[in-house]
């Protein structure tokens, strides 16, 4: 039988509620709301997105958990500055996973206008503008730009 949804969420990423709160706080310091971009917690980073990021990067799971555990209960900008100076690897681990999770959010991608890496079909009938406008001919008219070797070296 499936567990109730709230209990499932509480276990997201294997983190206890207190840790999730700490992650959400540091995530919002690192990735605040800006313009039409949501903050990390509003984008739902601390949940299934973080799980996805951790599945993609299992090598970071242990160091992420340790780094988060070493943060104060309510991380601030000063906390991040201190982490950068004191333990840059932990800072990079936290930032990488949270950003990786953030940019997998549909809401964030929508706000950025980022559609992801799509497969596009090349239009074989389309001629590039540089060709249609004769831009290449101008390059050709300027003549060769390569240097030949001195004759006695060949």
């Amino acid at each position, binding site marked *: 039988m499936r567990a109730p949804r709230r209990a499932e969420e509480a276990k997201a990423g294997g983190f206890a509620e207190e840790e999730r709160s700490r992650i959400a706080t540091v995530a919002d310091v690192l990735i*605040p709301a800006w313009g039409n971009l949501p903050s990390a917690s509003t984008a739902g980073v601390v949940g299934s997105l973080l799980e996805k990021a951790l599945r993609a990067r299992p090598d970071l799971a242990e160091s992420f958990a340790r780094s988060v555990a070493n943060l104060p209960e309510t991380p601030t900008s000063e906390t991040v500055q201190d982490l950068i100076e004191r333990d840059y690897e932990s800072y990079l681990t936290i930032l990488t996973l949270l950003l990786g999770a953030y940019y997998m959010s549909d809401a964030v991608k929508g706000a950025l*206008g*980022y*559609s992801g890496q799509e497969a596009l079909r090349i239009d074989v009938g389309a001629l590039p503008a540089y060709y249609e406008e004769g831009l*290449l001919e101008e390059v050709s008219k300027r003549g*060769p*730009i390569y240097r030949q070797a001195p004759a006695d070296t060949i």
Partner: protein
Amino acid sequence: MSRPDVLIIGAGASGAVAAKRLAEGGFDVVCLEQGQRTDPGAYRGAYPDWELTGLKQWNWDPNVRQADADYPVEVSESDIDPLMFNGVGGSTVQFAAQWPRLAPSDFHVRSLDGVADDWPLTYEELQPYYERSDVDFGVSGMGGDPAYPPGAEPPLPPLPVPDVANEIARAHNRLGWHWWPGYNAIASRSYRGRRPCVQRGTCAWGCGEGAKGSTDQTHWPDAERLGVKLATGARVYEITVNGRGLATGAAYVDHEGVHRHQEASVVMLAANGIGTPRLLLLSSSAHFPDGLANRSGLVGKRLMMHPFGTVIGLFDRRWASWQGHWGQSLQSMQFYETGPSADFVRGAKWGLQPTGGPLGVAMGFGGDPVWGEELQERVSKSLGHSIMWGIIGEDLPDESNAVTLDSELVDSDGVRAPRIHYRVSGNSTRLLEFHAERASESLIEAGAYETIVTPQVRGTGWHLLGTARMGDDPESSVVDRWGRAHDVGNLFVIDGSLFVTSGGVNPTATISALALRATEHLISRRKGQATP
């Protein structure tokens, strides 16, 4: 396996070219490759986690990736991190597939500019092999480029370019500067069973479409069909020799950790500019106490890795800056030759590239990652609004830039790891600064409101060159003009180690052409070939 005619060590660009051509010539060939085959379905380019996995599982740096097939490289005394992929296809699995050739002057650097050394061959000698390699790899591009002598058209038309590239082309015409549609070993049309490029922009993390000319797609299927035996998970640690100083084969550890020996009449080293000197140095013996084929003392020396810089242009206009081929849409050779008033010699090629997805932008390609509002501002300004000139500067050879064997570090089989000593020269630094300024002018002229310059990027040692240079004089070169070791008559080096100078372009077109040339020479001289 019984004794084949030829043993090739390494299944990357040069190994694949040689294997296929030898098999076509009726040779019995075995190839030992320390890595595995990669299923194109394993690449992550089509998935949302492609950038996250690109920082680890598909990282270009073996010290970061740490896959089973990788060996560690000691880099604490190197300004640039060497990059490679170990597996069938070698580094072509993750290369950008930019396919420019060396220019004619690159073969005569000493004669023209008074530095480094001339090659023992000319552009004209190599041109037919370039043209045949273009066909084998399925190169897209356009002939008539005034940066090169006339020759055959590439087999496929150029790949599409974003509209901003047309703006840059117009800008260069206003400036009177060279530009040309980029040469790429990426299929712009269906080609020999390969599908055309889908412009996903993730070429350097593996091409799931099979459009990119990695040799697991372009050469190995034919080579194996013709009978080449390709053994994967086979890590060579010694080239063995007999009392006459001829190579007898190679000792290797198989994928189950069993030590084996593969005999051969001829051995070809195709293990890249770090792996090849590592193996030669590991193969010291009573006959060759300083390493195999090292009478000149130059094995491992003159390492060149092409210091690389970038200039990103930010534009008000919006387009899908993360799509396209990576790859180059345009290239410029405007400042490729030594300038009359420059405070450096030689030059660089520029390649116009997309700028990647949001995580890459946030983490700062070659720069520092940022956070907070600065992060949000950076990504909003760049994603969908930017394009990049990648600048590859000529890297002059210096004997103090070298691959040696580390005294402590070993790989997972206990084999001594390579140690890199490499310092970026003052010439390279001045060259890249000059080019970054010119590339900024290019982008501003095209309408960029701002440029972001990273003159040198540490993690960009894609091109591993020069560590077993060719030449006519055995005292000042490791191999002859055909890649045959001066000291060991049945040992050939066919990878980027051969390079006398680096040029200022991506080297795989030249590596492939040289490998084809060396292989055909071996075939033509098969009757006189010394064997153990």
